[in-house]
């Protein structure tokens, strides 16, 4: 009978395929999936033995968080890259020394904070401070070009008009995986109890800035060049 009735069983040809290359592929996929769900401790232990896949899984898990912390200190892209690199190199040399693996996010956050503050001190001392901020303030137009979604663009432009303390806190509240309030309080050196109210205030300001942008307020609070004529 042709064509044969489709059952849940695989066709002979497909079965052969799975016995060959496909099986390795499936095994690799299964291994990657298991690494995605592995605990920080399991990944650290494997990476400490030089396991590349486990190490890459750690990088994938935390690279956005480390990046957001560096950018939260208003470092330009090149400096934020240097800070990220340093954090990962520091983790490599401390793989055997992380005592409480479940606190790895906190360890990475503390390391990123320390390196960001240190490099900010070193590099801003070399050039007038205003110059550094001018460079940072160029970014809205660049971001505007990169962001396709209109809403997202408006949000980022409004975000850029916020005070830098607000920008930093909101950055720290939007990491993957999320940081705990305890970790955020340590990074910005503020009492933990102040975070909730500050979060509300900053989000309120963000909303106000977005509203004012959308209604074309032109209140003058935006950086020159941000407003469409």
């Amino acid at each position, binding site marked *: 009978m042709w064509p044969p009735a489709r059952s849940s069983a695989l066709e002979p040809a497909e079965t052969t395929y799975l016995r060959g290359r496909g099986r390795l592929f499936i095994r690799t996929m299964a291994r990657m999936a298991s690494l995605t769900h592995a605990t920080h401790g399991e990944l650290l232990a494997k*990476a400490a033995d030089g396991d590349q896949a486990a190490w890459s899984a750690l*990088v994938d898990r935390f690279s956005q968080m480390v990046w957001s912390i560096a*950018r939260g200190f208003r470092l330009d892209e090149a400096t934020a890259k240097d800070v990220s690199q340093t954090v990962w*190199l520091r983790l490599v040399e401390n793989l055997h020394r992380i005592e409480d693996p479940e606190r790895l996010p906190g360890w990475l956050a503390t390391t990123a904070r320390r390196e960001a503050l240190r490099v900010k001190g070193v590099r801003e001392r070399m050039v007038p401070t205003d110059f550094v901020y001018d460079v940072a303030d160029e970014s809205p137009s660049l971001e505007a070009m990169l962001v396709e*979604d209109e809403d*997202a663009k408006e949000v*980022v432009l409004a*975000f850029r008009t916020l005070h830098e303390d607000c920008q930093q806190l909101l950055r720290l509240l939007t990491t993957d995986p999320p940081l705990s309030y305890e970790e955020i309080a340590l990074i910005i050196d503020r009492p933990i109890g102040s975070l909730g109210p500050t979060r509300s205030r900053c989000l309120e300001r963000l909303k106000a800035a977005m509203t004012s942008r959308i209604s074309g307020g032109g209140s003058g609070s935006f950086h020159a060049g941000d407003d469409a004529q």
Partner: protein
Amino acid sequence: MSESTQKGEDKTLSLLHRALDESDPVPTDVTDFARAAISWRTVDADLAQLSYDSSEESTPVGVRSLSVARMLSFETSAWAIDIEYNTASRLLMGQIEPSREVAVELHLAGGVVVTESDELGRFSFDGILPGPIALVFRPSDDEMIKTEWTLL
């Protein structure tokens, strides 16, 4: 706080989260570098910890330091390494104590450069750009000292 205010805030925050991820994603070269960083793993190194960093000295308010040299010290229980990095001339000079003639490796994000220290333990590297560095010394076959990665 009312439940609806809380919901409104959460919505604004998740909108911002998505917008920042779209506009400022982790650059690909950062994740590529991070994945490759495992190759810098040195299992047997005695890690020399940063014990002094001149950049952490506070500068009086209103005074802009004219100094472009940064001094750093690293220590293990048996060794001390002092380095000075001049951000203008890109010259990195250093000294290891107890002093000896030994091969000195400078690990950089982009690779490794090697020199020798003199009998006073002094060494120098030219044309070093700002970025993460680590120094590695092998004073004997079974001994390896590495300064912790530090961002210049």
